[in-house]
């Protein structure tokens, strides 16, 4: 029987880490992810885990320690937010290219500046091309479930890439909600042991990692890394199917909510999807054909699947909680529209809304405004402005 509990997103992630019982956790506190290493260090001092906890002096060191631990043959985890993630920058690329399946909880917070501790996605979006797999979570349950699936995806022999599991800072990380936990022994059996083929502490087969790799070989390594990201797609689905057998909870590349006969949909990540679901329910009562697509897997980007799903609708609003400052639209918008173009999906009209930067509250009437604009586009065929800011004071 699953365990019914109530906990915050941070506690849910820390609890998953306790059940996973990794070899090493190296972390440095930064709001709003601080509670994760805080809870975890309590598990360590209570003897509830066998993990070596390294209280490092910066996030650069946290990721470096994870790289060292994972290269040595251990399972390493960490957690961070915003500028902490930014301080890991060069190490993120090294972890990915060295094919080290580290798992990191990212509690999304806006990148300074201006200095602000609240939620948007500018931190993880900045790291979207670092070679990490990125999973996004609407609520504490999804953050917990994604953590349990992360190692299985990361450590799969055809993948061997690090994974970040993202959730919204404060909105998810600090809100206490109901959650269904999996029993310890079942988590242990599901996650399994980490048995790398190559690792530094293997005396029978000494290796060198991270050597100088000039133009004679780097290009081949990058191509191989690209393949690993492509391979991850199948593995993510396989692991999700197995997870569904264990828990009954179904995961894919993205969730579709009331899209069967929808004419307009919003595409949005993380907690705002919850608000959109509420608005969809309300507007459906008024007979409006609205729905939601909530990507869970942002890297690898499910190009074929998302383009095919979106081809059914007349008007689509992609909502970005980060701006690319390219004078054209946010990162999710760019990826979604590129996918549609690449797959010759030219039917739907697509617009972009930048929303909630720096933690600006997104209310149900903001979402209604987006849907009403989409419905107007369907009615008139006029798109108007493509790149929009939602709810900013004009």
């Amino acid at each position, binding site marked *: 029987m699953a365990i019914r509990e109530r906990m915050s997103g941070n506690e849910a992630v820390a609890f998953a880490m306790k059940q996973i019982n990794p070899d090493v956790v190296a972390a440095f506190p930064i709001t709003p992810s601080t509670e994760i290493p805080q809870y975890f260090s309590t598990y360590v001092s209570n003897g509830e885990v066998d993990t070596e906890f390294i209280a490092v002096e910066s996030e650069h060191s946290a990721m470096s320690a994870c790289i060292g631990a994972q290269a040595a043959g251990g399972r390493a985890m960490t957690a961070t937010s915003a500028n902490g993630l930014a301080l890991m920058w060069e190490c993120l690329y090294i972890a990915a290219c060295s094919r*080290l399946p580290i798992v990191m909880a990212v509690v999304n917070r806006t990148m300074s500046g201006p200095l602000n501790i609240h939620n948007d996605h500018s931190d993880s979006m900045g790291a979207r091309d670092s070679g990490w797999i990125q999973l996004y979570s609407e609520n504490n349950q999804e953050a917990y479930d994604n953590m349990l699936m992360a190692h299985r995806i990361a450590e799969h022999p055809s993948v061997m890439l690090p994974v970040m599991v993202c959730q919204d800072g404060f909105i998810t990380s600090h809100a206490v909600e109901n959650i269904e936990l999996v029993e310890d022994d079942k988590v242990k059996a599901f996650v399994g042991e980490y048995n790398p083929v190559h690792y530094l502490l293997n005396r*029978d087969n000494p290796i060198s990692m991270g050597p100088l790799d000039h133009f004679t*070989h780097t290009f081949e*390594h990058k191509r*191989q890394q690209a393949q690993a990201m492509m391979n991850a797609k199948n593995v993510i689905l396989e692991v999700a199917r197995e997870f569904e057998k264990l828990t009954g909870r179904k995961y894919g590349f993205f969730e579709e909510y009331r899209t069967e006969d929808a004419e307009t949909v919003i595409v949005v990540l993380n907690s705002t999807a919850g608000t959109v679901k509420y608005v969809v329910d309300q507007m459906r009562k008024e007979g409006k054909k609205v729905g939601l697509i909530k990507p869970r897997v942002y890297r690898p980007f499910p190009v074929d699947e998302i383009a095919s799903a979106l081809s059914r609708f007349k008007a689509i609003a992609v909502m970005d909680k980060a701006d690319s400052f390219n004078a054209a639209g946010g990162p999710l918008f760019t990826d979604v529209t590129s996918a549609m173009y690449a797959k010759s999906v030219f039917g739907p009209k697509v617009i972009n809304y930048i929303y909630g930067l720096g933690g600006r509250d997104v209310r149900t009437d903001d979402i209604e405004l987006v849907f009403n604009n989409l419905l107007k586009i369907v009615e008139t065929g006029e798109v108007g402005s493509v790149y929009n800011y939602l709810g900013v004071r004009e």
Partner: protein
Amino acid sequence: MSCKSCNLERKELSPDVTWKDITEGGTIADAGNAVLIKTGEWRSKRPVWLKDKCKQCLLCFPVCPDSSIPVNSEGNREDFDYDHCKGCGICVKVCPFKAIDFVDEG
């Protein structure tokens, strides 16, 4: 040569290895392979051993950062390993008998 436990050939070091065969992340799958990379190609100055002047005092070989002065089983130094000597000139400075000349690489 191949690696015992994983069967990886040393092909990962060859310049024509494909992305399908190259080791993941550039991992070098076995130890002691620096000898395979001919770093001597980077040299712009070349040390030349003047055998007649050499007293076999052996002050030169331990200072070479690239282990490019071989010493044989009789305990005598032999000619330079030009595949790996980078031409730093340390041995030239160290030799008390001016038995190492230092010339421009052609």
